[in-house]
């Protein structure tokens, strides 16, 4: 498989064409807007948690993303992976994904943890695209830490 095909896995193109959980929904505990200054890709992302602290559960992640196949597919996969998980576990998956992306192609992804996310292994070989793959993930972490920091913050709905 060429490097190109390794990046544009079927799974990625599928998520790109048919993104999961797209759109902005209520209720949510925090909303963030992240931009990739290099290319202008943007994502607005909302996180809705149920409960508090590390035991809280990711009830919903909704988003409005403008961007390339990689950035769109990656946020779509993110929702599949993280929604329904406890925040602590979700953060572990997050870390595994970031490690995979920053590994320059040298990290062997754990399919049990990352599921469809392993499809992004090929992206790690393209430094310019790593930021695309991480855009939604960075937004999610930012939004989540905001809710965790202010659990008593009024939920928007």
């Amino acid at each position, binding site marked *: 498989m060429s490097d190109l095909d390794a990046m544009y896995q079927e799974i990625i*193109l599928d998520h790109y064409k048919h993104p999961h959980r797209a759109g902005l929904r209520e209720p949510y505990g925090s909303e963030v807007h992240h931009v990739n200054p290099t290319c202008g890709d943007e994502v607005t992302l909302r996180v809705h948690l149920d409960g508090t602290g590390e035991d809280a559960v990711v009830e919903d992640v909704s988003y409005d993303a403008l961007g*390339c196949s990689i950035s769109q597919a990656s946020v779509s996969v993110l929702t599949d992976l993280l929604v329904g998980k406890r925040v602590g576990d979700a953060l572990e998956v997050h870390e595994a994904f970031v490690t995979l992306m920053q590994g320059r192609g040298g990290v062997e992804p754990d399919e049990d943890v990352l599921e469809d996310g392993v499809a992004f292994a090929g992206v790690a070989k393209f430094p310019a695209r790593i930021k695309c793959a991480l855009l939604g993930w960075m937004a999610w972490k930012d939004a989540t830490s905001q809710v965790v920091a202010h659990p008593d913050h009024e939920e928007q709905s």
Partner: protein
Amino acid sequence: MSVQLPGLLEDLELVRKDFPILGRTLADGHPLVYLDSANTSQKPQVVIDTMVDHLERHNANVSRAVHQLGGESTEAFEAARDKVAAFIHAPSRDEVVFTKNATEALNLLANTMAWPGELQVGPGDEVLITEMEHHSNIVPWQLLTERTGATLRWFGLTDDGRLDLSNIDELVNERTKVVSLVWVSNMLGTVNPVREIADRAHQVGASVIVDASQAVPQMPVDVVASGADFLVFTGHKVVGPTGIGVLWGRRDLLGKLPPFHGGGEMIRTVTMERSTYADIPARFEAGTPPIVEAVGLGAAVDYLGHLGMADVRAHEEAITGYLLEGLATVGGLSIMGPTTVSDRGGAVAFELDEVHPHDVAQLLDSRGIAVRAGHHCAKPAHRRFGVQSSVRVSTYLYTTPEEIDALVEGLEYTKKYFRVD
């Protein structure tokens, strides 16, 4: 070469041999097809060799030393100023200020206009720019007007990517202190009627700043005929090195600006109580200047001068025409900016239905074709056309029709890869 187009540079294959990088083979054995020259141009061997010779044989600081190396280095540095002055037809070499890049040149102007002086911009004053400016000609003016209480105003764009001059009489008025505009857009490729706007601006006493970053590489430039009071460009887009840009300004107006950066070489004398400043151009060149970069830029404009800027312009028109024709054959492709070669430079931005610009660029890159995807530092212009990013193809004096053919094939391949039909 198979395709023959009227207007192409003679001996194009020989010209290409001047640029070592054009012989490079990329991943999977693809030859480089470099279509990103509006981002930065490639460098001919003579520019590189001139820099190497300077570093290996003549390196010394300038203006400061009595010794032989210092003399040689100063002479080479100042000769570069003469060459640049001649290249843009500046009335005087002293009007050529070396900066770091075009961005610094624009910030020099916007920055010094914040402080007391005849050109100071204050509350109630208006600064007028256009919706097709590069961020480097937007943000400095946003900072200036925010900080001084002046107002920033904008020329809008027409649907075909030209300046909308319909409200010029309202936009250019007695409050207008500065009109700053791009000569050739780095995104849309539009060539603006700089002279016409400058004449109008001068009627109300405004200063006219021309961002010629994409103009100086592509066409013969005469700063006086352009109508500009100040004009900027950047070394790395005229086959010169990074680290050097040029601010040209009318002597009387440069003399009215207060100092920009303070430091070595820009002073007349320094005491603990106060300092006085050198005459132009030294006044605006604080610190050790980009010496080897100026020397490289001198070799670069010599190179362009030997080719002849009229011929470079003719080449650019021929190739751009061929490019526009080629892109017209690709279904689902829509161009932002003028679709004919008249009043148009060699940068063409477009969208391809259902494939994000990043993905287009990636697919092309897998075939060795280098284009740019993104907002090209022109977010307001992208927003004007309702898009967040685009693909930009930009040609230069070394671009061949065959490279355009490769691009068009690459775009068809991209569509297939992403299953667009």
